[in-house]
């Protein structure tokens, strides 16, 4: 099922400059695998050495951080929006 994926500038080097992508899958994990097929090297850009999501990366489904949903197994459905952003500070 197609979902929309928003990628930050720092990932656009692997997506050939494209900011908004389409990908399919029924979980976040499957969506990322699909993106990695479309853009080889995509998942390694946002993973640490052990293959886990890098701690400086935040992944959201419809604006909610997946760490508080079902992490990489968070379900997605047609029309959902997945956003990837680097961790930022304020203050």
């Amino acid at each position, binding site marked *: 099922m197609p979902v929309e994926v928003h990628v930050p500038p720092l990932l656009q080097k692997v997506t050939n400059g494209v900011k908004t992508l389409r990908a399919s899958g029924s979980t976040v994990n499957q969506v990322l695998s699909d993106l990695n097929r479309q853009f080889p090297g995509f998942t390694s850009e946002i993973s640490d050495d052990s293959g886990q999501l890098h701690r400086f*990366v935040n992944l959201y489904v419809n604006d909610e951080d997946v760490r508080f949903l079902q992490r990489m197994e968070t379900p997605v459905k047609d029309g959902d929006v997945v956003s990837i952003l680097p961790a930022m500070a304020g203050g």
Partner: protein
Amino acid sequence: MPRPGLYGSIVEAIGHTPLVELKSFSPRPDVHIFAKLEGHNPTGSVKDRIARSMIEAAEAAGELKPGMTILEPTSGNTGIALAMIGQVKGYPVRVVIPENVTEERTRLLQIFGAEMVYSPPDKGTNGSIAVAREMAAADPACYMPYQYANEANPRAHYESTAPEILDALPEVDVFVAGLGTGGTLMGTGRRLREHNPSVKIVAAEPYQGELVAGLRSLDDGFVPPVLNVEELDGKIMVTVEDSFTATQELARREGIFAGVSCGAVLHAAKRYGRRMERGNIVILLADGGWKYLSSELWTRGYEPSAEKKFWW
């Protein structure tokens, strides 16, 4: 005993902010939203609390002595609060801020005599942190409170913000605040959780996608040491447009003139509140609207150019 309402200096007048119900935003009859109005602090933001706490802790530990300069990376509010207290206590203050903060922030920093060093606009506060750390390492006459890793930051909220909330409203089911350093969420959250172990602590996070186009590598990412993400129950990202809309609604429906991050917090609270049957949500509105007047957000509303300014 000093008389209630009488303070020996403006620094002692920090805190004691009102908690106000936002009746028009109640998502259903048994769900109530209450706002802690931190814009009522002396410099107009919640950061007065942590600035006082960090400076007094450093003085007590002998890390900050007369003649030293306070140096801090900040997107504005913490710098303004440090600068104000620096004036009262006699410390020069130097702040490192992103070049694209609103003009009001730089004006306020000037009013309180702070020296400003600008960091690259496209790296956000992460860029300011990198610059300030280099400067501090090179200058032993500087004391850097470093709000991102200073335990006196969450402690200020544990010792003042949360007790004030509980004094006014003993039943808190959900607490929502903006995520900047994590200090407000951690410190307030810990105290509220001691009082009610089932309280939910929810972070509202700004969407900074366009703003931080200069972040080229994950190595530029940053998770403040003060923040333990495991202590949160939810984290909701809010766009600049939704933040603006809710900030306008606060003024028009409740007469509350608050900053842009406050709109984000309200937006996240409304979203979280839709899942609740009953209960009290306390939201912390970190600052007043004064520093954002030049944005024209109350008159013109959201425009795409707002994505290039630093609101948080």
